[in-house]
């Protein structure tokens, strides 16, 4: 009797075990399926609409076939350059503070915590804040303020880069062995030079990948640009004026009722995703190769 009970129980346990295995495999399949679906559909729709015009032409008026997104690609490049100029130095500086100067202090813990929280603030809120700060400011007459502009869009994206860059820089600097710092200081190198040309330089591949991650993240951001950069259907390099951006153009075209514009939206999405996947793969490659192999 007892033996039968025991046999039954162990069979049940084995059954539970294998059904859980099956369920988690099913979950994995269910997760991978939409991803593959998105990619396949994107490549299929995007590649069939992509041509040279896409990169060289500006949008045609409604009803005319053809046209491209050259202005949006150029606008995105300008916005991202401005964002990087703002976000990368401040982010790296914050990371250096966390890893080199503030390590273990309450202030550093507070900064780290705030950075993580800031990372989770929705991008649309960032857009609202920048709108209030630059597009419709309290103090008029300042340059670049008072109207929709590429400048305000770049600032919004730059602010969003800071926490990501800051945290990855910190993590990378923490991986640099202490002996390297001590060696530099032992040779009489001033502290600031030791930080910049020894510690940061050693960790630079990791820091660069962190910056690229942040870059890839803001490259696809649309929400903070809707009411800062606004978009523009003509060629413009003027950051003091509304400027086109690739994600913004995709959004507008996707919701339009025209098939031609839908095709352009897919082509734009493909270009955007190829850029981002390239960045992420590069990051993956560098980190998996061991960023600091030479140092440790």
């Amino acid at each position: 009797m007892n033996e039968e009970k025991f046999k039954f129980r162990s069979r049940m346990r084995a059954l539970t075990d294998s059904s859980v295995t099956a369920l988690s495999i099913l979950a994995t399949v269910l997760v991978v399926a939409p991803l593959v679906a998105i990619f396949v559909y994107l490549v299929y729709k995007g590649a069939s609409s992509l041509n040279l015009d896409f990169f060289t032409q500006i949008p045609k008026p409604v009803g005319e076939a053809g046209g491209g997104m050259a202005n949006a690609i150029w606008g995105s490049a300008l916005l991202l350059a401005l964002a990087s100029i703002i976000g990368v130095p401040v982010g790296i500086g914050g990371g250096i503070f966390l890893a080199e100067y503030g390590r273990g202090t309450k202030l550093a813990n507070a900064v780290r915590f705030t950075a993580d929280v800031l990372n989770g603030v929705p991008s649309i809120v960032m857009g609202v804040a920048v709108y209030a700060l630059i597009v419709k400011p309290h103090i008029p007459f300042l340059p670049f303020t008072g109207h929709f502009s590429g400048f305000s869009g770049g600032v919004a994206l730059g602010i969003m880069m800071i926490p990501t860059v800051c945290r990855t820089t910190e993590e990378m600097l923490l991986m640099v062995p202490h002996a390297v710092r001590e060696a530099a200081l032992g040779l009489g190198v001033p502290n600031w030079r030791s930080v910049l040309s020894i510690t940061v330089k050693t960790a630079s591949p990791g820091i660069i990948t962190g910056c690229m991650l942040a870059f890839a993240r803001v490259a696809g951001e649309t929400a903070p640009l809707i009411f800062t950069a606004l978009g523009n259907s003509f060629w413009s390099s003027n950051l003091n004026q509304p400027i086109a951006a690739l994600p913004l153009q995709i959004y507008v075209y996707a919701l339009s009722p025209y098939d031609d514009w839908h095709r352009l939206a897919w082509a734009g999405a493909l270009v955007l995703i190829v850029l981002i996947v390239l960045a992420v793969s590069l990051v993956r490659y560098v980190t998996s190769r061991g960023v600091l192999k030479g140092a440790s």
Partner: protein
Amino acid sequence: MPGSLVLVTVHVPDIRISRPQVQPERPIPDAQKLAGESTSDVSAVRKFLLSRGNSSIADAVFHWLMVLCGLSIFAIVALIAFELVLRSQLSWQKFGLSFFYQAFTDRETHLPMFWDPVNEHFSALPFVYGTLVSSFLALLISVPLAIGLAIFLTEMCPLALRGPLAFLTELLAAIPSVIYGLWAVFVLVPLLRAHINPFLIHGFGWTGLFNDENPTGLGFLAAGVILAIMILPIISSLTREVMTAVPHSQREAVLALGATRWEMIRMGVLRNARIGIVGGIILGLGRALGETMAVAMVIGNTPEIHRSLLSNGSTMSAVIANEYAEAVSDMHFSALTEIGLALFIITIIVNALAQLLIWMVTRGTPSQVH
């Protein structure tokens, strides 16, 4: 560091050669005095090092510059909060806290209404409702899948598959919101409209959660599904991280007692990692609450409250995205800003909570860089 001078002697030429970009040598009064007092016994090394002067000013400047960069993060958060509070004053003074729960009655139709920019009647209730419903749906769909995926990846998956699968889910996190929206508009919504919604109405219509009033396929369900796909990688990668942080001895102990693999996962891993998993879920919730573009593209954007998950609605972030650039009056603008402020406060609380929980679990182990 005079003690180390002797040791350095041999390396002096190396220093000069390897660092040709040194600053112009500027003698410091003290150093000159020292060099002058002791004549022959001062070695070349000492002269060289003293001639560098001390870098206390440069060091202090650099130090404070870095501190400033760190503090700028506080400044950004403070500035955002300040601007949002200031710009939402108008609506706050008119509606007060009832902004988040009141409803107005339409004069002609006598139906409840919430959002009337023309008559300056504003209530955030339908947007709060839409945000909560779509986020809850997203969690309902994604949490079991994410935990299943994390279990598979950490405990069962053959090593050869682990890397590519983890990479794929990371890619899922890197796709921009607007591309999810594009895909949802052209693939997911037609799919829901043609196959899934009729099935739900037919099979579960009696619950009142699914009715056929809205044939477009847009609505809460579409938003919930696309949000679920978007927050899945966040929850799953954090779950994976805390599960990996559970020491191997725990697993071995349970296995040694004769447990099956599932029992080992349940008792040895999930029980130890549960706080961190909850943290990951809350972080996913935070992302779902603030997600804008994909939701704005598929939820239908009507300021209404319906019981049916298949009807149109709107969320807090979607209404800001749709109306902020074209706000018709100061009050409209202020009401939208107040919604933004509410979103800001909610996501800060949710994220702080999640960080705290994750920190409680992983503080013992070094953080992983991906």
